């Protein structure tokens, strides 16, 4: 795969490492054990479009949120995790 890093441009995927689903929000202070369990352990795991965290570990070290199809591996969009998190709030 090739990933278009917003900071570095298009690079081969072997420069990146993968974390996983970027959809769940980290529970707020005082959240229940169940909320934490769901956040840390449960996944939608769709076959199709998926928002996910990648780390440009062999490049600029930016954490990215990539919108990618888990079946075709097509990438629709790449953003910086910090921008997305800030825009969400």
């Amino acid at each position: 795969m090739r990933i278009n890093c917003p900071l570095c441009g298009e690079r081969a995927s072997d420069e990146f490492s993968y974390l996983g689903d970027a959809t769940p929000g980290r529970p707020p202070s005082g959240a229940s054990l169940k909320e934490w369990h769901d956040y840390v352990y449960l996944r939608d795991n769709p076959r199709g479009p998926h928002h996910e965290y990648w780390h440009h570990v062999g490049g600029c070290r930016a954490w990215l949120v990539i919108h990618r199809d888990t079946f075709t591996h097509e990438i629709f969009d790449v953003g910086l995790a910090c921008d997305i998190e800030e825009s969400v709030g």
Partner: protein
Amino acid sequence: MKYSLFNLIRNTFSGHSRWTPAWRDATPKTHYDVIIIGGGGHGLATAYYLAREHGIHNIAVLEKGYIGGGNAGRNTTIVRANYLLEGNQPFYEWSLKLWESLEQELNYNVMMSQRGVINLYHSDAQRDAYVRRGNAMLMHGSDAVLMKRDELRDMLPYLDYDNARFPILGGLMQPRGGTARHDAVVWGYARGADMRDVDIIQNCEVTGIRMENGAITGVDTTRGAIGANKIGLAVAGNSSRLAAMAGMRLPIESHVLQAFVTEGLKPLIDHVVTFGAGHFYISQSDKGGLVFGGDLDGYNSYAQRGNLPMVEHVLESGMAMMPSLGRLRVLRHWGGIMDMSMDGSPIIDKTPIDGLYLNTGWCYGGFKATPASGWCFAHTIARDHAHRYNAPYRLDRFMTGNLIDERGGGPRPNVH
């Protein structure tokens, strides 16, 4: 028809025209006591043991494609029971015991070959971890042997002992481990289940799960609706998608794992050998191809094929371990979809939905688990409670903290 040398000879004289199908191509009935979704090794074994051990015969196995077309037919065929943790080892040892008599049990030669599985170690810390594990195996009644470097050199002369970046110091061997012919396991269980009246229904994809008042009533399929009292999911790679049909989210990610085979060769590797300074395992099939694999590609995927970086990475480990591999040629490489769980261990359990049972999370160890997985899943479905071998494989263990994390990788499936 019973398989035997006698029948083989007898059929020879009729030009092999009288062999009957190994299993019937069943058409769906309107209702079953139990529907197993997924005609892989685990699903077919479950149906087999439901019929064989629990006297349930009104069973259908629904397969969206052809049986054994998922990971049962894509793996590197390794059979072993060399686990560390108390949650795992009794289950896998039981599985190995079932393997040891599977041919006679099924009257189908699955070519179970106990050639020995060897995990190499390259540091004192790794040796200590293997000593801990080997002792746990022995204390569980399994077999384990610690091999020193010189013993390994005699047994596996082709490894790189002299110029390795991470020198080979020794290995932990399980002599009873080995390989089996993966497709034959599927076909053997299918034939055995079919003989016990189980309906094996191919090209039948489940499109919905029917429930009333929180209890299972049946499934919708590409071949119509089918009623059922109980449904067992054994759909490695697609567990999350099926569970979603019942409104559940699972502690599972789907990942692609690649496997490789070389051109056929005269006997070269007698054992299953696992590299300890990278992720690489290799054995030789009876047909002569070297069969090997390594790490996950690392990203969520439902595509049954991987990418080039991991291909290179796996073969780097291969060359580091065994530099005479260089001139041998990769014939084919392919991918399978793994249900990666959050602690690297499987789940065989009831679900909060009445009549819905779950068998998932095999990561890349599902093949060797096939017999015990079927056995335990059948027990859980028939009796509505876990057998002691699968009692630790609970769905709620992440809530309680009863993790079964052999690698200590934590809730990051791509490191397990």
